[in-house]
């Protein structure tokens, strides 16, 4: 309720500052009269509850002595899971300030993400995440423009996460608290022919988590293990993690002559963390390392990690001839840490592309993109080997495309990439692939516009263990129509069809037998949004999104909605909104839900500002 009051108070204060602010407030009440199905899934997907809400508040103050623009916006306060507030103020050429605050309730309790039995619902979260971001640019648009900023991102809440003791694990109540605070300062130096930005930031991080179990539990292994029933009487894990990150960034552009542009970016970060971990548990456990049973576990461990990362990019654009542009871009990204468990990762990319304007309505481009890199990382304990594991990536791709404007109203963009390589980081990284992207936009007249797209990616990664075959294709079209003069009716209709296919062999760790992982996702999505003015001031909106997928996890998700808006007084409108959520799954039918939502609300506007 306090939150509900803050925004109108702020708005009122702002109104006192000037005589003629403009703005509006939307307040309403939401009801969910019939929620059928799984509440946990509903909360994981939609999570909109009942009660009074401040749906929207918006105030703009006319230019004053200390600002040319001053805007305050707030959305979805009073108990909704996603709410935000944003304040911007600017005095042209003097300062520009932006403050953003967002809350997100992250609720997730979906057993089916792990396996078909759904018996192990032990990775659930119920957290409040907060984001705060404040930036002030001084003398924006001027030659020297310093800026400062502060960000804070954090979360608190509860979770269910397992306590893991080798051959068994036990669901435990967990508390989570983490925060990341960044302060930054920088300077922009802009002249007609060049620009440079220097930025330095310092960040502090903490992550505290505890997991505890106070009652006897047999855990997730209901049967015996080597003839004994493993159990936990009580147990507790505590994590205390803190860290810092220092970041230095420089980027700039230079245009020394009309036929050449240069640009570059350089970033160096040095993140470090220190972790302290304690664990105590009583019960009966089996320790794999020593291959014996034990009745108690006491562990205290600490660790440090430092991971310097350097990233750089230089690009040049040459225009030797009016119709020709040559663009080359070289990038590198490198992690080299100094610890006893070295992580070395180098990733490099060179991209060259030539653009040629064949005519005023046709531009073609062609070039090459080369990617190469290597990594040395500690072997995973999974394979019981020590030392480093080496990975590589080597790939060369032909890139090409066209921009076609046969008539002024029609634009067609096409992109293609044909890649082949010798190495890839992982089995699911594509070494050889071809992609095609087509987009078209047609603005027939003021009333009609149409867009269409077709995107296809086919790829493979042949390895010793078998080939990985992947393809993903989506195509869609949208039509938008608006009555040009009266604007009484507007319609947006959109349809998207997608087909994703993935096929790979994997090994059964126990038998070493070869198994197949086949994943398909065939998508149909339709969207309709219509606005119709029944009367000069009564408006009706209707439409929504219908989504159906087939394949490995057949799912349907329908979100139709409707709204009617009508005036009560000159500055006051009433609106009623209906939404329906219907989430269905063929395999995991226990995680379905459907619900109606009804919202009634008032929109109260201030009188329009009188021009001075």
């Amino acid at each position: 309720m306090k939150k509900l009051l803050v925004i109108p108070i702020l708005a009122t204060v702002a109104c006192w500052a000037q005589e003629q602010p403009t703005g509006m407030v939307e307040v309403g009440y939401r009801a969910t009269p019939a929620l059928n199905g799984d509440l946990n899934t509903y909360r994981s997907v939609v999570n909109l509850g009942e009660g009074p809400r401040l749906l929207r508040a918006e105030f703009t103050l006319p230019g004053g002595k200390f600002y040319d623009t001053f805007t305050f916006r707030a959305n979805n306060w009073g108990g909704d899971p996603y709410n935000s507030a944003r304040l911007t103020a600017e005095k042209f050429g003097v300062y520009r300030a932006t403050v953003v605050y967002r809350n997100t309730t992250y609720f997730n309790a979906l057993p089916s993400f792990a396996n078909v039995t759904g018996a192990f619902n032990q990775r659930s979260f119920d957290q409040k995440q907060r984001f705060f971001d404040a930036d002030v640019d001084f003398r924006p648009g001027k030659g020297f423009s310093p800026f400062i900023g502060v960000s804070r991102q954090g979360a608190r809440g509860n979770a269910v996460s397992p306590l893991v003791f080798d051959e068994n694990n036990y669901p435990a109540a967990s508390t989570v608290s983490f925060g990341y605070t960044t302060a930054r300062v920088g300077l922009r130096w802009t002249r007609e022919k060049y620009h440079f930005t220097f930025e330095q930031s310092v960040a502090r991080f903490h992550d505290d988590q505890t997991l505890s179990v106070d009652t006897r539990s047999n855990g997730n292994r209901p049967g015996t293990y080597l003839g004994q029933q493993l159990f936990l009487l009580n147990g507790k894990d505590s994590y205390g993690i803190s860290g810092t990150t220092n970041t230095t960034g420089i980027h700039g552009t230079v245009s020394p002559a009309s036929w050449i542009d240069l640009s570059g970016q350089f970033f160096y970060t040095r993140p470090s963390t220190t972790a302290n971990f304690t664990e105590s548990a009583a019960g009966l456990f089996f320790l794999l390392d020593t291959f014996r049973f034990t009745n108690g576990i006491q562990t205290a461990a600490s660790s440090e990690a430092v991971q310097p990362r350097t990233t750089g990019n230089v690009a040049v654009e040459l225009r030797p001839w009016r119709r020709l542009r040559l663009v080359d871009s070289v990038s590198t990204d490198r992690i080299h840490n100094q610890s006893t468990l070295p992580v070395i990762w180098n990733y490099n990319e060179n991209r060259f592309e030539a653009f040629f304007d064949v005519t005023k309505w046709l531009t073609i481009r062609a070039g090459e993109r080369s990617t190469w890199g290597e990594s040395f990382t500690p072997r995973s304990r999974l394979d019981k080997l020590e030392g480093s594991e080496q990975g590589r990536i080597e790939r060369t791709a032909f890139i090409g495309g066209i921009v076609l404007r046969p008539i002024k109203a029609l634009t067609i963009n096409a992109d293609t990439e044909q890649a082949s390589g010798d190495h890839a980081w992982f089995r699911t990284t594509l070494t050889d692939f071809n992609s095609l992207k087509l987009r078209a936009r047609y603005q027939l007249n003021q009333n009609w516009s149409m867009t269409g797209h077709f995107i296809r990616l086919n790829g493979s990664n042949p390895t010793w263990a078998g080939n990985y075959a992947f393809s993903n294709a989506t195509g869609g079209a949208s039509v938008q129509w608006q009555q040009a003069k009266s604007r009484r009716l507007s319609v947006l209709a959109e349809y998207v069809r997608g087909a994703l296919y993935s096929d790979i062999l994997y090994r059964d760790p126990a038998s070493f037998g070869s198994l197949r992982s086949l994943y398909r996702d065939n998508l149909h999505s339709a969207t309709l949004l219509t606005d119709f003015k029944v009367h000069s001031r009564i408006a009706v909106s209707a439409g929504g999104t219908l989504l159906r997928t087939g394949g490995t996890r057949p799912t349907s998700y329908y979100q139709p909605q409707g709204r009617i808006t009508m005036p009560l007084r000159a500055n006051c409108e009433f609106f009623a909104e209906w939404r329906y959520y219907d989430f269905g799954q063929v395999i995991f039918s226990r995680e379905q839900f459907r619900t109606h939502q009804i919202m009634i609300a008032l929109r109260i506007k201030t009188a329009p500002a009188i021009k001075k």
Partner: protein
Amino acid sequence: MWVFALAAMAQAPNPKWESCAACHEDLVNSFTKNRHAGVKQACDSCHGNTAKHAETADPAEIHNPRKMTAKAGEATCLACHKNQATHVGRVSSGHGRGEVACTSCHNVHASTQPAQPKDKNAQCMGCHTEARAQFSKPFAHKVQQGQVNCVDCHNPHGTFQPKAQASTARHGGNEPGCLKCHTDKRGPFRYEHKPVRIEACSTCHEPHGSVNPRMLTRSDVSLQCLECHVALPVNTASRQVLGGIPPAFHNIRDPFYRNCTVCHTKIHGSHVSKALLK
């Protein structure tokens, strides 16, 4: 307070507007609340010499970037905006290469009042229709609810990073853009899960949306893991890849072993367990 003291430096109204306002009153009224209002020769900067147009009222006597080809229109904007922080990666961006006109997204005359997040997202999805379908999936970032903007993750002007991820813009330096919000996954960890560092989050997650919980790319966690963690003679094969081998006691016919993240709870990286158990 010194910020406000600088307020006196504000630009005086441009006398040039007066002749334009005679016919284009709405545009000029809106324009005076705009950052461009501070530009000297405000209208002439983009539209060329407006004096002749003011006399004849002939549209042919004036430049209209919206009606030019994208490249010509872009040249008008970049005459001032080329050397700016947001445009450093422009030459590598999809929008730059595809010659998407600045006026496709920006309304140059509009007041500076920032657009609602939902409106911004709708603008992106006007062309990227496939994104609207992806965000309509049940497990997705809350873009349709207005909690997340497309520009929170992407820099539409371009960066040299894949998919124009905006990680280099003020937040997180050179770290993947996802970590801007998911700070608990930042690390560095003593024991890293390699894809997080090497290929970033999209190895396992669909960043826009998925029909699989946790926005995973597979509906079953065990397959998500085993597709990479397969018995491989690493460092000897001509096409070597990263990925350890699960020990043989992982009997994946037993549901206990198919729920990988119930044991490997710190799947994004661990400070104390090499097997990412805790």
